[in-house]
């Protein structure tokens, strides 16, 4: 099977959406446990975007976001990325630290470490669900974090897609906690899952 996302059929998209659903369901449960709060999630959206459109998906290429990137090894290889609006990241940190939600966050070492830990737990639970589903060994690395323009952050996984095609496969899940919105965007290079899964 060719690694081209341009011509995914309906069944393939459904499979991807279901994988996203199972993965993020697990991740949402894990997040709820850390935060000790109820976390809701939407049905994931599966989108195939041209590079020119990619940098606009988060509402603009220049808006500041926090990106957590993990590389994945095992039976498949690739990367997984988790993106948060910077405001959502501040709220998450404040919840974790037991501070008032509107306290100013300057992303010091402890706060960055706390966010990385969230990335670790989210990616771990997401991938372990996929691992169980597909019977593949999927091992995430320790996350790395960057705070910068959305376009610049997204370019990192987009470049990996660039090596194989002209579009990016994008599985997006939105997490909600009360009035606080946390957007989780998982970028996938896990094309091999689909190939083996079939």
């Amino acid at each position, binding site marked *: 099977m060719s690694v081209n996302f341009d011509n995914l059929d309906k069944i393939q998209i459904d499979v991807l959406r279901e994988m996203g659903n199972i993965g993020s369901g697990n991740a949402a449960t894990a997040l709820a446990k850390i935060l000790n709060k109820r976390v809701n999630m939407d049905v994931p959206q599966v989108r195939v975007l041209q*590079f020119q459109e*990619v940098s606009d998906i988060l509402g603009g290429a220049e808006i500041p976001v926090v990106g957590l*990137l993990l590389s994945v090894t095992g039976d498949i290889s690739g990367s997984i990325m988790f993106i948060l609006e910077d405001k959502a990241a501040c709220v998450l940190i404040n919840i974790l630290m037991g501070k008032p939600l509107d306290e100013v966050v300057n992303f010091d070492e402890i706060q960055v470490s706390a966010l990385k830990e969230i990335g670790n737990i989210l990616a771990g639970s997401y991938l372990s669900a996929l691992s169980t589903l597909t019977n593949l060994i999927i091992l995430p690395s320790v996350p790395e974090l960057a705070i910068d*323009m959305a376009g*610049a*952050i997204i370019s990192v996984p987009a470049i990996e897609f660039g090596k194989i095609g002209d579009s990016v496969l994008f599985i997006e899940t939105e997490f909600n906690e009360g009035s606080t919105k946390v957007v989780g965007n998982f970028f996938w290079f896990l094309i091999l899952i689909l190939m083996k899964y079939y």
Partner: protein
Amino acid sequence: MENIIKVGMADLKASHHPAILTTLGLGSCVGIALFDRTTKVVGLAHAMLPDSTQVKNKTNAAKFVDTAIDLLVEEMLNLGAVKKKIVAKLAGGAQMFVFTQGAELMRIGHRNVEAARKKLESLNIPIISEDTGGNYGRTVELDSDSGMLLIRTIGYGIKQI
């Protein structure tokens, strides 16, 4: 009215004067700004990967540094630019994430800049200024009137090169 032309990721545009070419959120990708001061024809490319010869799928020439520069120069010449008068400015090529492992993936920014330097040298296009490397994203605007390249960042200020 200013004529602002947006250049996306893996994209390139050339234009007559007056125009402002802009590309948002350059990370590890490299922005190649070309300018002919005599005709004020400008071009901007946002390339993702250093080398088209190492990849099978190359339907989009703007994706690779080497083919993007070729195509951009060609489009500028079609708009009346004079090859000998074209000068270049580079921006981008950052390393957004610091990884202790997987060096190949992470050095892509550096490799993009190197590839652009090499390609421009082979075409005898001088690089008159550059703002590359680092670990932060850049938004650039190329002004056809002055050839000035404006670079905006988050937390690293604004500069003109």
